[in-house]
């Protein structure tokens, strides 16, 4: 059906008499135009989001040389190689007197290439590559994804030879994230339940304090907390300073959980109370089991936070064998020579678990973001 309002505004001035068929065509053209324009705009802006992401993926599949190819190409390319006597050699298009031939280059030394025709591997043809202004040989390339970058980067680590690799960083990140998730779930749920459902003197004042701590910049508590963990407790260069605080609740998760717990019908808990259940029983046997969606949200967001965290590991972890992915990647980038394809491969591996988590729990992600963004 046509929208009567748009019909009026669009056609009233130009067409005094109404021809229904022309109206319909005009409307069709107009909506096609709007739809094309919308798609065009969305895709144009979307390039800003998609291109960097694709560039990270594509760079991680390029060979060392291809990374610096000018002008840059989208797809990874590599030399076409041919096997001669058990060794692989790159193929060149070589201009000869008999036209362009495909020769394999055995070696290239000071501007002279030693070519062989793969059909007659015993006849070496030394050729000057630059003859006058003309370059006589061009490397033959094909689209080729260099998967080897991934094991190369992962086995390498940020500083080769110190016994730590990105595999180690990956495991460290996983271990820290796992314990932070456990701590966050265990500690925040009872606190949020108390703020949402229990009635006791001082509750509301304490909740205002919880909200107020959200505004407190981390830098204010950073130094004493650092000294407490590092000097007093001697936990420097261990995971404990990152994991232990997760077991003591935090304002954001308390707030998020409380919002959810408040939506649980009070009657359910009251019925259990009449039957003589204690608050702890109501919490563990009624409230927690029906809270799985919000617990999933907390899990995903804690994982995201732990996986992404840079400042915490930077403060407390010193030796490479204890690095997390974030720290290792920064360390890798901070080296004098930057190996971009391997760096991008490591960055891709770093990003992958989050992307996988996103596609498995898309609803949970979006729900969590909306919850954190919603006003009380």
């Amino acid at each position, binding site marked *: 059906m046509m929208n009567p309002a748009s019909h009026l505004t669009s056609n009233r001035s130009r067409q005094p008499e109404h021809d229904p068929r022309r109206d319909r065509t005009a409307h069709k053209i107009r909506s096609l135009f709007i739809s094309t324009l919308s798609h065009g705009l969305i895709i144009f802006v979307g390039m800003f989001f998609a291109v*960097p992401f694709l560039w990270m993926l594509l760079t991680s599949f390029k060979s060392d040389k291809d990374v610096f190819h000018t002008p840059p190409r989208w797809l990874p390319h590599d030399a076409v190689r041919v096997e001669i006597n058990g060794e692989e050699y790159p193929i060149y298009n070589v201009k000869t007197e008999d036209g362009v031939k495909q020769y394999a280059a055995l070696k290239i030394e000071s501007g002279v290439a030693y070519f062989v025709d793969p059909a007659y591997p015993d006849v070496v043809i030394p050729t000057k590559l630059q003859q006058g202004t003309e370059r006589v040989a061009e490397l033959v390339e094909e689209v080729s994804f260099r998967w080897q970058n991934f094991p190369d980067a992962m086995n390498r680590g940020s500083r080769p030879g110190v016994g730590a690799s990105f595999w180690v960083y990956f495991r460290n990140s996983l271990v820290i994230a796992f314990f932070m998730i456990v701590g966050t779930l265990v500690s925040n749920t009872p606190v949020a339940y108390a703020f949402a459902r229990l009635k006791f003197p001082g509750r509301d004042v304490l909740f205002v304090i919880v909200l107020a701590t959200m505004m407190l910049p981390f830098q204010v508590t950073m130094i004493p907390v650092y000294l407490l963990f590092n000097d007093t407790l001697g936990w420097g260069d261990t995971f404990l300073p990152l994991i232990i605080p997760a077991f003591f609740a935090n304002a954001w998760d308390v707030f998020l959980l409380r919002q959810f717990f408040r939506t649980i019908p009070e009657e359910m808990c009251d019925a259990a109370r009449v039957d003589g259940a204690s608050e702890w029983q109501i919490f563990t046997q009624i409230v927690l089991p029906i809270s799985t969606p919000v617990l999933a949200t907390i899990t995903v967001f804690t994982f995201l936070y732990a996986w992404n965290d840079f400042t915490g590991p930077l403060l407390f972890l010193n030796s490479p064998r204890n690095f997390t992915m974030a720290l290792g990647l920064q360390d890798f980038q901070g080296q004098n020579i930057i190996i971009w394809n391997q760096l991008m491969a490591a960055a891709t591996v770093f990003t992958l678990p989050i992307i996988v988590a996103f596609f498995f729990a898309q609803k949970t992600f979006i729900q969590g973001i909306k919850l954190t963004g919603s006003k009380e």
Partner: protein
Amino acid sequence: MENSTERKLFGFKLPPKTVWTKRAKSDLRTGLLFLSPWLIGFLAFTLYPMVVSFYYSFTIYHSKRAPEWVGLQNYANLFADDKFWISLNNTLYMVAIAVPLGLFASFVCALLLNLKVRGQAFYRVIYFLPSIVPTVAGTILFLWLLNPQVGLVNTVLAKVGIDGPNWMADPNWSKPALILLGMWGMGGTIIIYLSGLQDVPQSLIEAAELDGANWFQRLWHITIPMVSPITLFNLITGMIGMFQYFAQAYVVGGGDSLGRPLNSTLFYSVYLYQNAFLYLKMGYASAMAWILFIIILILTLLLLKVSDRFTYYSG
């Protein structure tokens, strides 16, 4: 004593005075038991460190030696410290430009993603994905994209005849480069705006349409006021986050030359970190932290106060 009048503290309504019956005592015990993880954490990791860092801010403290009381010396030194002002300036630049620009761009993106076209679910994923790329990975990716010689951006610019800037290597372009990086990862804000747009009652828009309001008038008089609480929320969280901007700048600085080029990426939190953990001036850094806290507090209250007039709350 004053049971009849409402008790107030700083404008907050206080609950009525507690009568300490047996029931109240037992309720309190249960409540505190449930709260104990937060209570202990608050005392150990928030309140105690706050008190201590406030004390440190009046001392000279080089981690290994005992703190030495110097009164307001640290604060006086800070106000005379050029790098303090540089770092504050850099941070205010980001707060004043990056935060509003990011909000505006997020809102525009949310409008695009709210259009009734096919394939929106796919487009939304594309816009959102960069925001979950880890900060360090995203920053390194942008160092690569914006590489002055071989980066994708400058080679594409060169193709259309534009001589691209040196981005992260140029003190005038390093902050715009970081702003681009920030906008690439604004998917979370876009989603928040998008859910706000979807909550705008369709009836309001249709009524305005019938009254002959065009697209822009509907946007200006209905949509923008309806999402103003979200704008305020994003503005405040964005501002607080920007004052603590650290990881991206640390990665750009490569760790050992923080603030490069020419202190243009020496943000407040970076200089604070440098003082605390590289120069081991813990007292000085604590003073910086408290100044930061006070700035954030004042700006937040100011924003809340000013926004009263511009923010629309339904129901």
